[in-house]
Every structure is written in structure tokens, then in C-alpha cells.
């Protein structure tokens, strides 16, 4: 073991193997994945996010939201994600084709957001939550993001966009809180987070009647048919 060159080549080989296996192979397998036609919704999935939501993802990234929120639902029966209502099915590679950067997140100090657009479609709720989480969820441990909003004196008439705050959360008299573009963009992004389209590799859980049907006709249990029957 005294030949530097042999050790060098050995290390090189070992590392090249890992690089090939963990980087090149997945790239060849799913790096060319394309949107698929989903019959149930009659369109291709996924579609790129609309412009404002695209912008919102940059706000999500810049503020490190992914440090506390994940965007991945684990499969039913593995952890309590689906039972918690964080998703009807697990998330799969197909859900993330247009994500750059892909902020799956690695810790859940806040709830998972993979389907937040379905769970809470109310724009105003999200704006209030971002301005001060205590307004809509007292005792929440989420920080406030007041810098996404503008506090300004009320002009001739109150702005239609001003947040309807009252009590301790309201600004002093004569002022109003108006969301900046960043806040609107971030909320548009949050509302666009939906991973509920049934896919071949991640179908919806069968409802009780369908389960009966499946047991009657065994050929339906195979993959392709299971998807068609949904």
C-alpha cells in the first residue's frame, strides 16, 4: 500500500463508480421524463406554473421557507402524511418536472405544503398568515413576514387590497397594511402547489365501491386497467 499512484487510481475508481451509480444512472432513467396525458383531468400533467406563481417560488427560495416546510408526501402506510390530509396520494417524480430549484425540504417544523393550494385555497387567509401568523393561527410558531407588506397612510379611500386586520394586529389609526408584489407572488405560488392528479405510479386510493369491482374482475387489478378504472 505504498504506491501513491495505485491508491490514487483505486480511489478514483471507487468514486467514479458511486458517481456513475447515483448521478448518471438516475439521470438516464428519469432525466428525460416528459409530461403525461392524464385522462381523468383531460390534459397533460404537469404544466409549468403561471408567471406570478413562478415569481413566488423565488420568494419562497430567497426566504428559506424550505428550512421548515417540506413538499413531499410519503406513501400511505409509511408515516402519517396521508392520514393527516397532507395529500391524497404520495408525491412522485412526475410531480416535479418543472421545478428548479426543487425545494423538497428536509424537516417539518411546519406542515407539509405539497398540497397547500388544495387544503387552503383562500388568498386572504394566506396573506394574513404571512403578515402575522398569529392572526389566523394563534400560538403558531411560524415567524411573521411583515416586510412582504407595506404600511402606508390611508389616502382618500382605503385600498381594496388592504388586509382586514382588527384588534391587536391592526396598525395604528390612519394606516393600512397592503401586500407588496412579493406577497401576492408567494401566495400565488402556494396556491399553485397541488399534487393530487392521479398518476399510474401514484393512483388515488380506491373508494370502497371500486374495491368491490376490482375483486370481482381480477384482470382489473393489473396496472394499466387500475389507472383506467379511476
Amino acid at each position, binding site marked *: 500500500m505504498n504506491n*501513491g499512484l495505485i491508491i490514487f487510481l483505486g480511489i478514483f475508481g471507487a468514486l467514479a463508480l458511486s458517481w456513475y451509480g447515483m448521478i448518471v444512472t438516475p439521470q438516464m432513467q*428519469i432525466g428525460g421524463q416528459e409530461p403525461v396525458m392524464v385522462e381523468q383531468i383531460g390534459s397533460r400533467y404537469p404544466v409549468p406554473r403561471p408567471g406570478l406563481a413562478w415569481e413566488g417560488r423565488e420568494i419562497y427560495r430567497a426566504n428559506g421557507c424550505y428550512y421548515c416546510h417540506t413538499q*413531499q408526501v410519503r406513501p400511505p402506510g409509511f*408515516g*402519517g402524511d396521508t392520514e393527516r390530509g397532507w395529500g391524497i396520494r404520495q408525491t412522485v417524480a412526475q410531480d416535479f418536472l418543472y421545478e428548479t*430549484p426543487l425545494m423538497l425540504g428536509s424537516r417539518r417544523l411546519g406542515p407539509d405544503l405539497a398540497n397547500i393550494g388544495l387544503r387552503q385555497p383562500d388568498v386572504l387567509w394566506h396573506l394574513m398568515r404571512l403578515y402575522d401568523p398569529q392572526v389566523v393561527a394563534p400560538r403558531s410558531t411560524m*415567524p411573521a413576514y411583515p416586510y412582504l407588506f407595506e404600511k402606508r397612510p390611508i389616502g382618500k379611500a382605503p385600498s381594496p387590497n388592504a388586509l382586514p386586520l382588527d384588534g391587536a394586529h391592526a396598525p395604528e389609526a390612519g394606516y393600512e397594511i397592503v401586500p407588496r408584489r412579493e406577497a401576492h407572488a408567494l401566495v400565488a405560488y402556494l396556491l399553485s402547489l397541488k399534487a393530487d392528479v392521479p398518476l399510474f405510479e401514484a393512483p388515488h386510493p380506491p373508494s370502497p365501491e371500486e374495491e368491490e369491482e376490482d375483486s370481482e374482475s381480477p384482470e382489473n387489478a393489473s396496472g394499466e386497467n387500475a389507472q383506467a378504472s379511476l
Partner: protein
Amino acid sequence: MNEQVAIPKRMNPETVQIEPAEAGVVDQPQFTNLEVDRSCRVAVMFFFFKAVVWLIIAAFIGFLASIKLHSPGFLAGVSWLTYGRLQAASFDLLAYGFATQAVFGMGLWMLARLGNVQLQGRRWILLGGMLWNLGVLAGLIGILAGHGRGYEWIEFPGYAIVFLALGYACVGVSALITFCYRTRTELFVSQWFLLAGLLWFPWIYSTAQLLLFIWPVRGVVQAVAHQWYVHNFFGIWLTAGGLAAIFYLLPKLLGRPLFSHGLAMLAFWVLAVFGTWGGVYPGSPMPKWLSSVSVVGNFMTAIALAAIATILFKTSLGYWREIRSWTVLRFLAVGAISFLVAKAMGIVGTFRSVSELTHLTTYADAIRHLELYGFIGMTFAGVVYYLVPKLSQVEWPSLGLIRFHFWAVVIGVALIFAGYLAGGLRLGAGINNPEISFLALGRSLIPFFGLVTLGLMLVGAGYLAMLINLVKICRIWAANFFSEEAPDQKTSAAGATV
């Protein structure tokens, strides 16, 4: 005082061979240790200083961030100080400002010492070090300004990466040249580890940069590349640097050869071949075989871990009194224990049944903090406390500060670890039980994060003590250096041996 116990004769580190000379081969060293050390001192001191300073800044920023976990209103109005940015800044400073530079400093010295060669390309190394630190500073400002890139542990924006890449090129190439110019031909385990780290770090870093940011690959392939990068950054790059130091200094200071070179070889190759496959957890939105391969890779890594534990245990067997009473060895011992615990937890955490509970919680934070502050931090401190008096010919001015450093960091790391681990287990159990509302679950974690805040405060204070001692010793060193009358016999007032 324990530290002043005279070092037994058999343990005089300078006369001890690092490994038994092979039969018939008598190496006549070309350079004395003093000559080798002299050639490294500027570069090594540069990296030591920068590493300590960045660690203190990172601990302080992490401390601010952790306060926000239990008092979300703290500093909430300032975009630069929001939780996600502070935590990202703290992590990346720890990884690139502190840990990587600590490995640079320790590694350059070990490559020169073990190869019995003077450090090559010293000016390039200094230039590289300055570029690297500029990159870290630019990265810190970038993250706080909102230019972080959305991937944990690799968030520095593109303009910072340019400096880091150039800086690494200067340092890494000089290190390789030093290795190639070595006059002692037989290789010691530490050199293999350093060589692997030197080669692997630029490879994983450039792969991650290219596939995540420059030509982003599609969808989850990015997440695979990212998780692979993080796994290897900790599992190979930092592990290689820290283990090299422990494997070098532990037998050297104990005055006995490293137990079983065969086992060390096994551990090294298992780590290189299997330890590099990993990072993907069951239940992730990726092809299933990736998490299966990760589990297998981690399982095989357990063999390396067992081998390393055996080596460390057997090497220090019968020398517990020395390890307890000699400060440098105490630091190294804490580093080694942190390494073993963190690695074992990392391996267990990828198994399906365990990861159902622990994945996506603060379990991983417990491991990362133990690795950075415990393993790399304490190993690095041991090397600094051993080496700097040799380079400067000045004893440590304050033993009290060193003792304070040791206990503050040991208690601090234990608190951080306990807080993140217990909090993580509670979080995981809560998530898997849909009866518990998430809001209540979040509230119930607050006491655990209180422990983390306290721990970070202690760790920061501990390393501040180290920095004070370093500044003091350098002042005396500089004074000695410029007063030519008695250049090397001066010691400080306290004049103590650690």
C-alpha cells in the same frame, strides 16, 4: 492541575515513529520536524484562525436563528434576519467557512509531516485561502440578501462560487504537489484519507454545481444529486479530514503504533466504495431503487465504522489515564466519540422502519451538529492545541481558557444534540399520529429548541475562549519573532504544557 502532569518518557511525541518501520528499510528523514513545521506555519495558522472565526460567527447566527424557533417574533421585521436565511447562513458558514478550512489547515500540515517534505506552493496556498474566505464572505452576504439557492448546505450564490473554486484550485493543487514531493515513501493511513478527500471534494462540489445550477437536470434528479452531494460532503470530505487527524495524532501522542493497519485499510476501502452511495431516504419521490441502494451502502458502511471503532479502542486500550489527563488527547477523544455516534445514527436513520419516524425531522440536525461541532470541531481543537505551541515555540498563555473551552463545548454539543434528537423523535412520532394537531405539536417542541439555543451559546463561548488564546499566543510569538536577542526560549507567564 491535571494538564501539568509531566508527560511520561515513552510518550514523547517527537521521538515516536508513526508506524513500525518495515523490516530492513531505514528511512533517513531528509527534513527535521522543525523544518517541516516552519514551512507550514503561515498557511496553517491562516486556516486555523479563519476556521475559528467563521465557527464563532456561524454559532452566533445559529444562536439567533434558534431563538426564533421558540420566540417567532424575535427580529421578525427584517428580511435579512428571517429564520430561513439565518439558518442557511449558519449551516453554510459551518460547512465552508469552518469545517472545510479546518480540514485545509490540518491536512496541509499532515501531508507535509507524513511525507517529510516542506509545504509546496506556500504563496499559492495563501492566495487560495484568501480567495476562499472572500467567497465565504460573499456567500454569507448573498444568503442574507436573499440570493441563497434553495438547496441546504450548498446555498452560496454563483458569484461566491467563483472565488471558492479558484481558492480550492490553489490550495488543492498545492496539497497534491506536496504529496507528490514527499521524501518518505511509505504511506500512512491518514495520507490515503487526505488524498481521497482532496480528490473527492472538487468532484462532488462541481457535480452539484453543474447539475443543480448551471445546467439544471430535470426535476427530482436535482434532489438526488443534492442528497448525494450532502451525503458525500459529510461522509467523505469531512470524515476523511477528521479521521486523518485522529489516526495520526492519537497513536503519535500515545507513543504506540496504530492498531492493525489491515483493519484501517479495510475501513478506508469500505468507506470509499460503499460509503459514497447514499443519501436517499425511503418514501422520497424518487425511484425506489435509489433508497434501497442507499440502505445497502449505509449498511456496508457499518463495517467500516466497526473497524474504525476497533482501531481507536485497541490503540488507546490501557492508556485511559493519559487520555483523561492530557488535554489534546481529551479533545481528540471527544471528537472520535462524536464521530462514532453521529455515523452510527446516520446509518440507522436510513433504515426503512427508523426513517419512518426520524426522516424529515430534526434527527438529521442532531447528527450534523454533532459532526460539525463535535467531531470536526473537537478534533480540530485538539490539533490546534497540540500544534500551535510547536509552530510558535510559545506555550499556551491560559490553561483556564482551554479548560473552559473543553467543558463549554462538551456540554454545549450535548445540549444541542439532545435537543434536536429528542425534539426530532417527538416531531416524528407526532406527525405519524394524525390525532395530534400540528399546531400543538409545534408548540410542544419549544422546550427542546430552548436546549439548542443554550447549547449554541455555550459552543460559541467555548470557541471564543480558543480564539482569545490564539490571539494571545500570536502576540507573544510576534514579540519573540521581532526581538532577535532571545528568539526561541521565551515562554509566556503561565508557561504550561497541554
